[in-house]
């Protein structure tokens, strides 16, 4: 076994990330946060950082179908992955149901945390975990919103869960 010299490890890497269906190929520093990559390199600016230490949830995106915080992941770790943000879920019936209910129940005010909140709510619906008010409140407790007091959000997600029974497969298994 030979040692691995520091200089032999890359300080820049070429990566290819599929962002909302489009492959974005860039040479990046390993330290570039996924959220910065999405905003600055991929030009997908809907999702924002709110704390950069993994508490507020504003930067939540889907990586290979799973909701994660894009401030706690490096772009190089998403090399070869499929990343989706709210912009990449246009026309998705579950996301559309959420967007409609969010508007109806006034579940957003400034809208800055909303893209991350929608992604968390989306996953909650797909997993069938928006069972009741308690489960929605706990399921969304990783996303801070300072405007709404969460009341509209919780009602909107519950309403979307009710209306979405036709579109979300039963027992939370993801289709396709």
């Amino acid at each position, binding site marked *: 076994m030979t040692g691995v010299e520091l200089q032999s490890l890359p300080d820049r890497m070429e990566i290819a990330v599929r962002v909302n269906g489009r492959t974005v190929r860039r040479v990046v520093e390993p330290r570039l946060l996924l959220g910065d990559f999405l905003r600055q390199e991929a030009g997908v600016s809907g999702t924002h950082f709110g704390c950069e230490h993994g508490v507020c949830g504003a930067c939540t995106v889907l990586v290979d179908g799973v909701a994660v915080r894009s401030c706690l992941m490096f772009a190089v770790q998403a090399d070869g992955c499929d990343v989706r943000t709210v*912009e990449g879920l246009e026309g998705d019936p579950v996301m559309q149901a959420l967007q409609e209910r969010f508007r109806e129940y006034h579940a957003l005010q400034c809208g800055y945390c909303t893209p991350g909140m929608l992604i968390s709510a989306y996953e909650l619906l797909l997993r069938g975990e928006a069972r009741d008010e308690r489960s929605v409140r706990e399921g969304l407790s990783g996303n801070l919103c300072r405007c709404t007091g969460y009341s509209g959000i919780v009602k909107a997600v519950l309403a979307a869960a009710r209306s979405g029974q036709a579109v979300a497969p039963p027992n939370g298994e993801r289709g396709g």
Partner: protein
Amino acid sequence: MTVETPVRPAYRWIGQKVPRLEDRRLLHGKGRFLEDLEPVPRAWHAAIVRSPHAHARIRSIDVTRAAGMPGVLGVLTGEDVVRMADPFPLTVKIPIRYYPLAVDRVRFVGEPVAVVVAENRYVAEDAAHAVSVEYEPLTPVVDIEAAMAADAPLLHGELGSNIANSRRFDYGDYDAARRRAHRVVRGRFRFPKVSSTPIETYQVLAAYDSQQDEYTVWSNFHGPFTLHPVMAKALRVPLNRLRLLTPPDIGGSYGIKAGVYTYIVLMALAARKFGVPVRWSEDRLEHLMASSSGTDSLIEAEAAVDADGRILGLYLRRMDNVGAYLRPPEPACLFRTHGNTTGPYDIANLRLETVAVMTNKAPTGLNRGYGGPQLCFALERLVDRVARELGLDPADVRRRNLIQPHEMPYRTVSGGLYDSGDYPAALERTLELVGYEQWRWRQRDLRDRGKYVGIGLGLAIEPSGSNMGYVTVAEPAGQRAGRLPKSGCTEPATVAIDPGGGITVRLTSLPQGQGHETAAAQIVAEELGCDPADVTVVTQMDTFTRPWTVSSGSYSSRFAPLTASAVLLAARGLKERLRRLAAHFLDVPAERLIFEDGVFVDKADPGRRISLRRVAGAVHWNPTSLPPGEEPRLEETVFFSMDEAAPPDEADRVDSSVTYGFVSEAVVVEVDVETGAVRILDYVSVHDAGRVLNPLLANGQIYGGALHGLGAALLEELRYGPDGQLLTGTFVDYPCPTAAEAPDIRIEHLESPSPLTPLGAKGLGEGSTMAVPAAIANAVADALAPLGVEVDCLPLTPHRVWDLIHAAAGGDGPAGRPAAGDGGNERRGGDAW
């Protein structure tokens, strides 16, 4: 569940639950926040070197290594700032020098010391870590009373003390009231330093044109534009050489982002020094340590009461901790509520003392409720103490002191003019909704079973639309006399019709999520007969191209009383012009025209009709068809102000706000006396904000405002150690409530339209932030009354509640013995496994 008031007839759009226009973009990731935009190309990025000390002299700054790093343009330090800028002018004349960057001394942890400009934020931070600063630590002081002590370490030697401002106001005769009182009830209350912490942090992008000595700055600053002259003065330019712009979307503020202005100046100076546009995105750690917050307050209070609990006189001594500098608009926090110091109560005699104290904490500024939560906490706790000391029910004491509806409009002793309201009705409705009497019964029953349930009331006057003159009471009448008086509350709005008949509204109300676009569109749609969804509302600010005033901006819940009025009057003015033109084109007297669904129709001959669109087309395309003397203009700008917003009088009376709403809240809590955890069982909130423009938006404001109040009541505090180190510098340590902690709220509206505003509307959005900390504290004190616990400080974290119980029990609380029915999940085990 939300209980809706029956809606009035007559309006088609106003007062309806119109879903927001803003949501169309925000729900799809298409918001336009400053970080999402590149208004100028090739901006460089700043990172700020900040003080790790609460109080220290700067011995030296070595930027050599940082400036030499690849990708780094350079470093701005205090030397540059002193060369290019003046200290900020202050609200009151005191000899302290406040720059956006420390010059020779740092006075709080996080105070900017140097600015690194580099090709991106990553490199800028690398270089910021390479700047080496040598400090000579000085003794810090963080506590209000310690800072007021004669031998306290001084923050600003020139001033000779740490007291930035102090005043005493006497209205009526407090001493006489005290002499004839049956009893004097006292309290000493502490309100924590809290911040509403918007999820979008401060954002600034500054550019400098050396040819014209002109600064252009994009930021998420939302006013008040009284701070524009403060910035321009610091930058040594006239106001028309400091162009301030904002993006269409701002990610929340609740007042906090008014404080971004010092960074506007700082980045403007960096842009000037390096000759490039400079962008700065504050990070969360910077935000928590050095953006802005409300003041922490110590309030000594006395109520002189008769045997029935009638308050004959009130004494308040308000001490506000404004942090390391008296940053404008401070000490305004002490005076924002000046006209409503006596709350919803009929109190004829008031003595008020105010003290603004500087300590080695971060400077303060606007934060939701601005002074109201502190005042309300003291006043409402005091009222409960009156009840407890006299053996009366807290609801009864309030009933006996409330201003009666027949007294409206009511002039308070300190000069406020309460424009409308039925406070007793709102209180009774609150008690009915929460089931006050039933809870009193259940409470006794539950106590017998070892459960501690409490019911707390919190009433608040919710002032809206601040009078520019209120801050001037910070100086005595004699000193004010020599200066230009300040008054008014002017807010402009423009409504324009384009050649195709399309309607555009331009606001300078700078919303950060409140839904101004929707509400303005509703008002215009109501007046001009269209659908709100078809109205375009522009909220971006540009001080070079938009009509604005020194009072423009978003603060003091001024949209409903002021902006909405300006929008209404502008739309109405435009409609009158259109009516005149329609009359001309149809050749009928204008009085004969009615306006329906965008069409002017002759009452006498309904066949004679002309659409608004057609009239608009004629004005734009064929102005020679207009009658003589009629200007070809389809744009109306109204600057709305109110005469009630007069300067303070000789006796320091000032109507500090143009409208006053009322909030009545009841909270039921259960306290787990073993852990100190407070659980909210019910929360009822009754609001009277005059005419509600859109119940969806109104309730959104109430839910949001309530949660900020609840955070201050139960969880949040920017805590500092005795060494001045911030202990809550991350979102892990500064615990904003999540969805799991947020209670549902039962909201109800009563509507006593304001006689002063054309729509009868008043502001709303800060009332619950004021009322609920008091209501929760009252509820917890009520729950723990059998244990002898008094509550005089916040937040009521489980730890603090446990401490209170422990202290009341003389060190051995009920905690030592297991409560029956503990937590609901415990069963007694019997005598075998």
